[in-house]
């Protein structure tokens, strides 16, 4: 984060004890940013401990309180969330240095590991909209580029889909649990942030088209590679595998992967991303050779 205005505040009042026992308060520091292109800054809040808290209830308390540790009235911290049970992917942020969902980040465990404080910051690989909210539309653009869908003829009644083995179903199910949270991309050294500013006189459409073009040329990341793997093993998806393989080996494709294997370690759904990368890598190699011979 290049534009961090100042590091953790030290001189500010803190909760004296944060050992996680009822009735005690604990410290939460949040890396805030008022909007795109604005400087970021740390802010300390004191939160009253309750049983069974997670980082969502911490942020709810901060929003309800809207006062910093030193009593200053501030705008509530902005953050994304929806399901609160780790299936929607919305509340992804960096908590005590680790990218994860705020809803499953339980306060008791965080304070066990670090009784001093809980540190919340936005993901670094996506443009900050405000505070802990980031714009992850690039992930959805990647899914467009990769044609991550089953290209059925129509939505009319054509009977059931193809029969599948339990083994295939299990493999596809695991890949299909990807909730586009972005953890794998945050942890990936090859995935770099793209942040655009709207030019003067540029319409919204023009801006999004320009952005889309940049997204299309940038690295698709582990989640994109796994999506190709998922749809190219689907019995119907396989029929258009070539289109997805073309995208997989195009600019920003699988060749960017540096095999750091961070992705698989941070995936909250325990998707075997490196297995997918290996499988997709083999398919890409075969595809390249075939293309070369077919010339």
């Amino acid at each position, binding site marked *: 984060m290049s534009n961090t205005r100042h590091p953790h505040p030290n001189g500010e009042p803190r909760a004296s004890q944060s050992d996680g026992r009822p009735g005690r308060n604990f410290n939460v520091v949040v890396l805030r940013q*008022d909007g795109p292109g604005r400087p970021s800054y740390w802010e300390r809040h004191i939160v009253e401990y309750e049983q069974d808290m997670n980082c*969502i209830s911490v942020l*709810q308390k901060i929003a*309800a309180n809207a006062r910093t540790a030193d009593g200053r009235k501030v705008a509530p911290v902005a953050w994304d969330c*929806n399901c*609160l049970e780790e*299936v929607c992917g919305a509340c992804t942020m960096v908590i005590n240095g680790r990218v994860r969902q705020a809803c499953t980040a339980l306060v008791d465990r965080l304070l066990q590991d670090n009784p001093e404080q809980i540190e919340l910051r936005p993901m670094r690989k996506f443009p900050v909209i405000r505070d802990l909210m980031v714009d992850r539309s690039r992930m959805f653009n990647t899914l467009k580029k990769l044609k991550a869908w089953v290209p059925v003829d129509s*939505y009319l009644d054509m009977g059931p889909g193809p*029969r599948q083995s339990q083994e295939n179903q299990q493999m596809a199910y695991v890949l299909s649990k990807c909730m586009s949270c972005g953890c794998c991309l945050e942890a990936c050294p090859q995935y770099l942030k793209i942040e655009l500013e709207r030019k003067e006189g540029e319409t919204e459409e023009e801006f999004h088209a320009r952005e889309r073009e940049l997204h299309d040329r940038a690295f698709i990341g582990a989640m994109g590679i796994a999506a190709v793997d998922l749809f190219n093993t689907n019995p119907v998806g396989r029929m258009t595998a070539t289109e997805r393989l073309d995208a997989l080996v195009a600019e920003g494709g699988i060749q960017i992967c540096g095999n750091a294997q961070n992705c698989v370690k941070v995936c909250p759904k325990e998707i075997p991303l490196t297995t997918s990368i290996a499988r997709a890598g083999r398919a890409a190699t075969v595809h390249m050779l075939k293309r070369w011979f077919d010339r």
Partner: protein
Amino acid sequence: MARHRVIVVGGGLAGLAATMKLAELGVDIDLFSLTPVKRSHSCCAQGGINSVNSLTRQLGDAEWKHFDDTVYGGDFLAHQPPVKEMTEWAPRIIDLMDRLGVTFNRTPEGFRDQRRFGGTLFARTSFAGATTGQQLLYALDEQVRRWEVTAHVKKYECFDYLGPILDENGVCRGSIAQDMVSMEIRAFPADALIIASGGCGLIYGRSTMSMACTGSAVSRTFQAGARYGNGEFIQVHPTAIPGADKLRLMSESARGEGGRVWVPRKPQDPRPPQDIPEQDRYYFLEERYPKYGNLVPRDIATREIFNVCTKEGLSVENDRLCVYLDVSHLPRQLLDRKLAGILEIYEKFQGVDPRATAMKIFPAVHYSMGGLWCDYERTAEGGLNIGSPRNQQTNIPGIFAIGECDYHYHGANRLGANSLVACIFSGLITAPGAAALVQNLNGRAAAELPSTLYDRETQRHLARYKELLARPHDGENPYLIHRRLGDVMTKAATVVRHNDELDWACEQVQDLEDRARRASLSDTGNWTNQNVIFTRALVDMFPLAKTILKGARLRDECRGAHYKPEFVFPEIHATDPVQRRLEAEAWCDRFVENNRRWLKSTVASWSAEDREPLITYEDVDTSLIPPRPRLYGMVGGDIIEQVWRERGVREEAAV
């Protein structure tokens, strides 16, 4: 001629199904959602999706039986033609979702696997692990993305729908929405508007619902003149994990796969559950309902769990109400293959492995059977005339309602795994109706209308927004008012309802509404202001909260999820056979009389002047399956069922 556009508000299963089908029919769509649609609340649906299938058919099942289970489960409050049509479409809907790539669990031979769910004796439920809703949502999300690439669909994600735009004839001509990032308020012309915004669980504070389920889109449409049906019918799911921020669902599929609900016979037995021997366990659902066991419908399971804790004092814990939901006797391999998704949720949030130890669960607000009133066009055979614009259209011309936010299909209680099929079905069938409506507009398309109508509405909403920002800073905190609203609603209008408590709640809610309308914001900025979005949603919770309370207050009976102890029919106590029969006859007489008075949909319309709902009642189309006592083979209820059957035979003989 300008191309016609349809606006869809909400990108869960219903909204996405409608969008995808409309795109296929050549209609352009603007899709609005509070969140990226892939993060919609449908992803929280766990257990599965119901339909008759080739296996159940061979055991005697048929579409008609799915239809019958659904209306019986809903205590006969649903209009029957839409339900009949839905159950007939269900097998085709699952086939379609299968083709779209949903990773349904498979049998060893490669067919779709099914499990049993509540309120039926057949294994009708197809499932993808224990995250079926997520998998269905993703398949539709992918299809809609496909149409987005070809520019048939334009998504407006992170937009807050502020209300419909009606012309001087009261016809819908578009909607107003606010960009939740830039806070810009804009008018969007359209020839039809489909509301698919889901449930309103946040009115209850904590529920199993997602944070986007505020009901605001529905409330704003209601306040613009749309009617609201059966508001008081709120489903409380029997099994959820209590939590500080949310009550997390523990799917019925846990019981569908063999999970058992029990409490120790000795109150607050201190032994860990796995050390309590069989004879010291009280499997109260199995004992009271031997036929359906743990798979009685949700309203019944919820009341039994509630009673065993409150009346019988058998809660597992002393200071917190809960019972055991036990899957620890099931093979680990089965649990991992079929239920991993939900067991992981329990493990992550409770830190206990439910494969080894019984889970502690308690009921939680889960689903709204009621919703925007909408129409349907019936065929002579009792199904729906597909393609008719009347299907799912509200009383405001041009506005449709689908999914959880319509009032069809589930009556007074929804059966598990019927919501997913209802959402996709209502979405799919609304597409041809809405397409027919916009393609046969007699007047001009919305895109050709003068901009004055749109400018006026934009200005009106802009003024309201500015008023919110300009409120004095010394008012109350909206988050605290919301918490209080949730407490009041949960106390008065969930499992057990009493008229005095409902009266009290009506007063409380009125007071809270007055306070919410004066609450002040802690953020008055004009960029990504979540404070504004929340406060406005809070203010819009009150019309629906009042509709729920008033509907419940007026309905002096027990039906499905609506339960007032004061109006419970007495159980048959006599042991003497003649006396038993007499009591059962009286019971049946009372049943007939009660239906004459109360087998009616509650229909509310909003009075802006009084800020109160006006309640009327509408007859229910029960022409296909006549109402009958809903006992689910309860121990002691057999004589009632026998007397009722004999009456039916006599009536038929008389005809």
